[in-house]
């Protein structure tokens, strides 16, 4: 009797286990299928860039070969010419200067603004926070016309310092918005404890809030970096001489002459330009994800 009684549920449990395992296998197979599909889809353009950048001009001109493979052997000539005979390094330096300045300005402004709007409740703070986010919704393709007047009136037209001035209009609202959310997710008792411990608002920000909100700050920094590194409309409109140009516009304008496209160098330039964001993402990815999912769980 007792054996039978035990045997029945045991068989049942095995049945459930098998179906669970089968379910899991199906889920995994479907996930892998789509992940591989997406990986191929997104990796094809970079692959094409690498292949093209490693080809000689002669091979590219020969229409008979398959453009997806290298037939005459890989060469770094495109990179050599790009770095030595064009203004690419000047563009790179300009972009780096602009980006570092923009990230610094953005972080100072948005962290201070977010702290004030998120933690120091004052009359109209909620409305101001929404207002800041609304400014982010105005696209740069609309803003560049009035912005042109402003930049021109202060004499920064055709200077990359003009970019340092205008890029924060894109980065500050969004970064402030991210940081407000992050600061608000920090328990109120933490600043009360700091107040009682004797901290002023500035000490509270630097000693408690910034260290605690570091993942959010890094997420905001990556955003500001990406926006400023990849901006196209403003430099296109405001910069016209090569010594002031930034990577995005400079590479395109200097390597496309009329209807002559220097494909090898264009691809090599795009690869080198994509390297810094790639490296930064690779190192800070964990922080970035932690920052974007802040508030999902209480740490």
């Amino acid at each position, binding site marked *: 009797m007792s054996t039978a009684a035990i045997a029945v549920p045991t068989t049942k449990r095995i049945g459930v286990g098998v179906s669970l395992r089968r379910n899991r296998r199906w889920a995994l197979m479907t996930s892998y299928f789509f992940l591989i599909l997406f990986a191929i889809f997104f990796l094809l353009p970079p692959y094409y860039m690498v292949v093209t950048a490693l080809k000689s001009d002669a091979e590219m001109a020969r229409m008979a070969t398959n453009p997806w493979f290298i037939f005459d052997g890989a060469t770094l000539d495109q990179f050599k010419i790009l770095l030595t005979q064009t203004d690419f390094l000047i563009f790179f330096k300009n972009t780096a200067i602009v980006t570092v300045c923009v990230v610094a300005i953005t972080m100072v402004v948005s962290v201070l603004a977010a702290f004030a709007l998120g933690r120091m409740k004052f009359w109209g703070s909620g409305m101001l926070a929404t207002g800041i986010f609304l400014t982010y919704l105005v696209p740069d393709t609309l803003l560049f016309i009035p912005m042109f007047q402003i930049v021109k009136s202060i004499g920064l037209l055709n200077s990359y310092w003009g970019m340092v001035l205008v890029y924060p209009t894109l980065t500050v609202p969004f970064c402030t918005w991210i940081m407000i959310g992050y600061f608000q997710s920090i*328990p109120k*008792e*933490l600043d*009360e*404890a*700091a*107040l*009682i*411990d*004797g*901290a002023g608002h500035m*000490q509270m920000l630097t*000693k*408690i809030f910034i*260290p*605690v909100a*570091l993942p959010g700050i890094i997420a905001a920094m990556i955003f500001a970096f990406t926006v400023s590194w990849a901006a196209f409309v403003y430099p296109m409109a405001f910069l016209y001489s090569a010594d002031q140009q930034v990577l995005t516009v400079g590479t395109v304008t200097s390597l496309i002459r009329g209807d002559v496209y220097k494909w090898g160098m264009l691809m090599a330039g795009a690869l080198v330009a994509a390297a810094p964001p790639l490296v930064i993402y690779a190192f800070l990815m964990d922080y970035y994800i932690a920052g974007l999912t802040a508030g999902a769980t209480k*740490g």
Partner: protein
Amino acid sequence: MAEVTLRNVGKRYDDVVAVSNVNLDIPNHEFLVLVGPSGCGKSTTLRMIAGLEEISDGEISIGGEVVNDLPPKDRDIAMVFQNYALYPHMTVAENMSFGLKLRKFPKTEIKLRVDNAARILDITELLGRRPKQLSGGQRQRVAMGRAIVRNPKVFLFDEPLSNLDAKLRVQMRTEIKRVHQKVKTTTVYVTHDQVEAMTLADRVVVMNNGKIEQIGTPNDLYHHPKTRFVASFIGSPGMNLIPAKLENNGGGLNVRLSDKLSFHVPESRAARYRTHTGKDVLFGLRPEHLTETRGSENGVGQEFQITLDVVEPMGMETMVFFKVDGTEVCGRVEPTAAKNSGEEMQLRANLDHMHLIDPATNVVL
């Protein structure tokens, strides 16, 4: 260490009155507990003492100095929060020394104080850890350590044990009492748990609807409640309150609970209640004064018959529940004397401990 005084203190949020007309004199070294249900204004009162909430009316002074307009850091107080509020990016030692560092204490002094507090709380081996690596009880100790190192005039505790599990709560309660006996700092402690209030306090302040209902020693509140609220709030389970009528019975008084049940009011209390003869009252008696009939230590009692509704064995005693004219009543009996639910049982009411409450004013007569 210092005394704390609250004079006519009130707090309003727009039209909502959170706290009104609170008057308290907390002498040096006292352990005062503010207790009451959620929303009664106890935490707001504590936060006003801390300076985390502005005062709408009245005056608060600490150590003889009026602190109404002083920011929290200048009030020389330390606070322990319900969710610990430890700085997550700092080690235990850094958490404890943060306040001292901001006040520019010399390093040797900071180390001395942190080590001393860690020894008192038995957390010396945790000094290098971060809050995330600690259990709830350990975190609460660190939060207390952060308060102790400052050596403030007043400790403020805001429901510090509410996040802990039942067993740890009892353990930490003893710990808090032990620490207070050692450092003797004036303490104001907020809790909604009346057991915590009774066990920790020198004096308990019962609050309800933003007002003080009664101030007194734990025994005082338990045995001599002044209002219906205090009578039902203090004690676990609370006092039985049964609608009744006070009747004349020759020279004495009877309190009639139902058609069948009526108790004779002891002589010692009859004079006090006589003016309410013929009126509706609430009859109050604690469960431990409704006991089994056997044994001789039950005091002067009156026996009556009930039908058991629910029986809850607790080990050392058994709670019996029954109905008197629709009102649920609880008694405490010896486990061996208890019968099963549905059965009849003879109980004895010890009327020396009875209370009568005027239902119109909710004041204990």
